[in-house]
Each structure stands twice: as C-alpha cells, then as structure tokens.
C-alpha cells in the first residue's frame, strides 16, 4: 500500500473513531445510564479520533510533512526499534503474568489466576501460529 493511501485509511479511521466516540457519549447523556466506563471510553475514542484526523489532514495538506512522516515511519532503525520494543514487551508480559498467576493462587484467587494463565496461553498460541505462517511466507 502506498503511503498516501495509508494516510487516507488513517483519516477514515479517525473519522470512524469520532463517530463511535460521539455516539457513545451522546448515548450515555441521553439514556442517563451514568455508566462511567462507557462515558470514559466514548470520550477517549472522541479525543483520539480528533487528534488522529487533524494530524492526518495536516499531513495530506503538506507534502514536506508527508515526506518527513514517510521517512520517519519507514526508517529501518525506527522499524527495528518498534519490533524490539514489541518483542521485549511480549517477554515482560509473560514473566509478569507468570508472577501474577502464582501470586493470585497464593492469595486464594484461583478464578483470576486462571484468566491470567489463559491470556498467556492465548498469546503463546498466537505467537506459534504467526511463526508458522511467517515461516511459510519467507
């Protein structure tokens, strides 16, 4: 996908976020459900959508900014940093989850411990599936 198309997709995503965020906020106001989670989620979606849309409109209007953004996003060192950070985050999550499972069991919270353990299993399954797909591809 060309970078300009990527920015257009992001622009559309920003507008979608604004619509969802606004819908959730309006829904919460009119139904007077006092659902704090829904209200917060709506406000966050709205804020992200606005920031995302403004940023991408600016990029579309300014060729120099677009070029700089393209270089920044495709820069091989930056890509390496993203990938390394994701990889470290994955390992840290596994370690933290392992500690959490043991702690939760010790605190007599087996149900919560099970949920955390399942999340680790799901991550490992996704990892292996992705690995085998990529191995076939390259």
């Amino acid at each position, binding site marked *: 996908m060309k970078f300009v198309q990527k920015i257009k997709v992001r622009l559309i995503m920003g507008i979608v976020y604004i619509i969802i965020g606004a819908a959730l906020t309006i829904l919460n106001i009119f139904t007077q459900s006092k659902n704090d989670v829904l209200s917060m989620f709506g406000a966050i979606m709205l804020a992200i959508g606005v920031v995302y849309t403004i940023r991408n409109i600016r990029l579309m209007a300014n060729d120099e900014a677009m070029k700089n953004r393209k*270089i*920044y996003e*495709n*820069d*091989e*060192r*930056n890509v*390496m940093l993203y990938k390394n950070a994701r990889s470290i985050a994955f390992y840290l999550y596994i370690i933290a989850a392992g500690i959490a499972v043991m702690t939760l069991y010790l605190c007599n919270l087996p149900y919560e411990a099970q949920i955390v353990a399942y999340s680790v299993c799901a991550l490992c399954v996704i990892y292996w599936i992705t690995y085998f797909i990529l191995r076939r591809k390259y």
Partner: protein
Amino acid sequence: MKNRIKEYRKQNKITQDDLARAVDVTRQTIISLENGKYNASLMLAHKIAVYFKVKIEDIFIFEEEE
C-alpha cells in the same frame, strides 16, 4: 561492523541531514551508524555507497563476529 560514513561525509562536505534525506532515513539513523551503534541493512548500505559513488566494501568494513 565498522564504517567510514563520517569520513566520506566530511570529504564530500555533506551534513548528516543531507545524507539522511538522500538515502530516505532519519538523521538519528545516520548518527547511530556513524557511532557504530547500529548496523545498516544491505539496502541502506547500497544506497549510501551509491550516494558516495563507491563500493559498499569501501564504506562498510565487514568483520566476522566471534
């Protein structure tokens, strides 16, 4: 892997920013390359060599790691 990017850059009186723009990377990447903190991909090494009109092995010194 050592490199002589800084040397070639100074010889040609080019700034890090100019080189970065010419080979489509950020200035930070050029800084990291010059400091030896980051090793360029084959593609980037090729682009840099083409930019300075020299062979890749003239700029990048390949050393087998122990």
